[in-house]
């Protein structure tokens, strides 16, 4: 399908009627945008608007429930964070949106332009159809001529305005020497109008003004659906990015100040608090902490950091804070350079031809040859140019590509709408079709099958004293491993009095229990010099006996095991590729039920494995979230990433999982397969109509009445078939 032409100034009443950006619900340059993910009813709208309007620095506030956004027009300058705080006071969750990451205003205008053309085509088609009905039911002579002239007077300007997307598309295709879908459409419309005008001038019987207009109307409806689906997906994807207003804490003259990341320069001193992701590359100048590199490498065991350690953007500081001197910012960070490499290497989907394009490649030349043959045949047989042109126009109208232009967008809209309600965002137009062919699913481990939160293994097997002391020490720390211990349920008898608990960043927590120093933390500080173990564990030193090891498992993402089971039942081959060490990889694989798992994969190993699978003729879906997956995500035939994934991974993938549960995955696959089946079904229906109607047109039996009936009924059948059942 062809893209829309850019909105450009045109001198006609329809364009003048297009809304100008004016005060109201549409974002202004200095409007502040907030995302309100939880609003759902009129009370929320009223409360949010009232709370915002009550502020003296807000001129206007309007909540859009469809987009779950608030547009705030400020008086002067307003900090979006303050507005979020205002809404939080009335119990509404709000996040500031980065306005520059959203480009919805342009697409909104394009959508309205399309809707306008659709309305004009619909209005004209209705009126001309009424006049045509009068002609078909027996108007003759002067009356028929008058009806035809009135029809022409309505149809010509209406087509001139409404048909522009097709004419522009046909022109673009022809100027590069190609036959796109728009060429036969534009030709059918123009030829139908021309022959009808000629017929009318000679007071002939048959005019196809109504057919040209209905053709235009149905195809515009398809265009509009397609456009809606595309922009809905794009604006949701943009919103995910816009939610991450990148901020960092810069230290100026000893005072930490919150600034946008874009304002940080090389050499600035940046503070990264515990739990935060580093926004720049840098060298640690103060503080000790542990770094979680799983977003970049997939490895779950944290790495210690001390002054002099290099930290890359995207790494999370677990126990902090760390003070960094920035060595690379923005596009120069290792994270960005890697992400850019990936953007170049997109291979998997570039070669994919969507079903509609395959059909169009057959259809476009076929229909021209057919019409030309019909014209030539009638020219030879009757030698009458007028009859021959009429037949050719009838053939072009009867073969109208409504199944291609309307049925495919209708199916895609219905299916992606259904998936969006289940929390799957389809970013790419052909992703659904590609997904339908998937026979192999490759998962990443950390952050995809597991949710990145550790779980204590064998807690009940530990001595009661150890459990109690570990809990008391763990409660004083925000480190994820401590949090996992603190989450363990304990009885009242388990509570032990541990005094003077202090956290030593990068090492662990320490306190006094029964007069002895007790420590919970990394090997070498609370435990033996090297842990030697392959799994993630922390050590507890009770001040006597040998230190106790507390081991951790990765906690599975909810629904992961169910998803794998259902996919296997659907006959899909499943593999796991992880950058983590062999033991945790094997443990996770066993828990979710995956037989083929590879550990310690470098990003290029993942890509190589995907390419090997594709070389075997498999159709691969890659599910991953980290920077080490982006290559694989781009190389696979289809890719999906959870919403928690790194921005670079989300950009590289075709679909984004908005919820946390993985078990929507088999459902998504089922939906995609159903959609593909439905599209082929629609092609068959359309072909059937053509097989019946085209011979009628070629032998000259297709009166405008038959053309109108065949075209409308085929369009309506395929649209109804697209929307029928199963999606819900």
């Amino acid at each position, binding site marked *: 399908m062809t893209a829309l032409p850019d909105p450009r100034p045109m001198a006609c009443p329809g364009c003048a009627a297009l809304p100008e950006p004016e005060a109201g*619900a549409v974002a202004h340059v200095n409007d502040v945008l907030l995302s309100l993910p939880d609003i759902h009813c009129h009370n929320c709208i009223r409360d949010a608007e009232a709370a915002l309007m009550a502020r003296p620095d807000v001129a206007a506030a309007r909540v859009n429930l469809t987009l779950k956004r608030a547009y705030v027009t400020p008086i002067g300058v307003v900090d979006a964070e303050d507005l979020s705080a205002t809404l939080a006071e009335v119990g509404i969750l709000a996040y500031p949106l980065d306005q520059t990451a959203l480009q919805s205003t342009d697409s909104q205008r394009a959508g309205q332009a399309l809707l306008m053309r659709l309305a004009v085509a619909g209005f004209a088609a209705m009126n001309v159809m009424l006049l045509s009905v009068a002609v078909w039911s027996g108007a003759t002579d002067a009356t028929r001529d008058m009806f035809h002239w009135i029809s022409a007077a309505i149809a010509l300007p209406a087509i001139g305005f409404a048909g522009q997307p097709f004419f522009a598309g046909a022109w673009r295709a022809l100027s590069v020497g190609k036959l796109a879908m728009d060429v036969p459409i534009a030709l059918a419309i123009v030829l139908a109008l021309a022959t009808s005008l000629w017929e009318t001038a000679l007071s002939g019987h048959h005019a196809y003004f109504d057919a040209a207009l209905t053709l235009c109307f149905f195809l515009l409806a398809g265009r509009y659906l397609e456009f809606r689906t595309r922009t809905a997906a794009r604006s949701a994807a943009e919103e995910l990015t816009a939610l991450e207003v990148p901020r960092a804490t810069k230290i100026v003259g000893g005072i930490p100040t919150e600034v946008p990341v874009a304002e940080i320069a090389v050499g600035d001193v940046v503070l990264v608090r515990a739990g935060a992701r580093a926004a720049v590359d840098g060298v640690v100048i103060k503080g000790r902490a542990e770094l979680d590199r799983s977003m970049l490498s997939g490895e779950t065991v944290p790495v210690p950091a001390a002054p002099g350690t290099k930290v890359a953007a995207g790494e999370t500081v677990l126990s902090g804070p760390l003070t960094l001197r920035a060595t690379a910012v923005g596009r120069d960070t290792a994270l960005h350079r890697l992400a850019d490499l990936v953007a170049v290497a997109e291979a998997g989907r570039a070669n994919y031809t969507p079903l509609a394009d395959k059909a169009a490649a057959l259809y476009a030349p076929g229909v021209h040859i057919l019409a030309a043959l019909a014209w030539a045949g009638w020219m030879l047989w009757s030698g009458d140019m007028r009859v021959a042109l009429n037949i050719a126009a009838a053939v072009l109208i009867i073969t109208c590509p409504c199944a291609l232009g309307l049925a495919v967008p209708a199916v895609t809209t219905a299916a992606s709408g259904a998936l969006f309600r289940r929390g799957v965002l389809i970013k790419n137009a052909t992703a659904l079709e590609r997904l339908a062919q998937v026979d192999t699913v490759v998962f990443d481990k950390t952050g995809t099958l597991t949710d990145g939160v550790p779980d204590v293994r064998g807690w009940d097997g530990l001595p009661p004293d150890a459990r109690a002391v570990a809990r008391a020490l763990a409660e004083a720390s925000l480190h994820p491993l401590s949090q996992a211990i603190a989450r363990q349920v304990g009885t009242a008898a388990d509570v032990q009095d541990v005094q003077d608990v202090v956290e030593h960043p990068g090492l662990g927590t320490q306190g006094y229990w029964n007069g002895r120093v007790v420590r919970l933390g990394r090997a070498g500080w609370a435990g033996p010099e090297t842990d030697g173990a392959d799994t993630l564990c922390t050590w507890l030193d009770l001040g006597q006996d040998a230190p106790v090891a507390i081991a951790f498992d990765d906690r599975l993402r909810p629904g992961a095991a169910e998803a794998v089971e259902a996919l296997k039942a659907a006959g899909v081959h499943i593999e796991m590729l992880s950058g983590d060490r062999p033991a945790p990889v094997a443990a996770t694989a066993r828990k979710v039920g995956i037989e083929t798992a590879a550990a310690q994969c470098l990003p290029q190993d993942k890509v190589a494995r995907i390419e090997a699978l594709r070389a075997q003729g498999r159709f691969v879906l890659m599910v991953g979230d980290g920077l080490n997956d982006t290559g694989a995500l781009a190389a696979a035939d289809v890719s999906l990433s959870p919403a928690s994934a790194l921005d670079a991974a989300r950009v590289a993938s075709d679909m984004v999982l908005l919820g946390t549960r993985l078990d929507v995955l088999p459902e998504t696959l089922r939906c995609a397969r159903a959609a593909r089946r439905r599209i082929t079904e629609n092609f068959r229906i359309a072909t059937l109509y053509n097989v019946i109607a085209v011979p009628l047109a070629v032998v000259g039996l297709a009166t405008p009445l038959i053309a109108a009936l065949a075209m409308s009924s085929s369009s309506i059948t395929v649209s109804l078939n697209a929307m029928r059942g199963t999606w819900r």
Partner: protein
Amino acid sequence: MNVLAYLIPVSLVLGGAGLVGFLYTLRSRQYEDPEGDSRRILDASWDDQPKP
């Protein structure tokens, strides 16, 4: 058949009125928040007097 002289203009004017009505709804941004508009009508705040 003289009645056509009235009926055709009448039908065109009626159709045109529909088109103009649609253009008005489009211009006044009534398709931007269908979800929200259907909920706002349930709000009782301005039932007794119009919104200032």
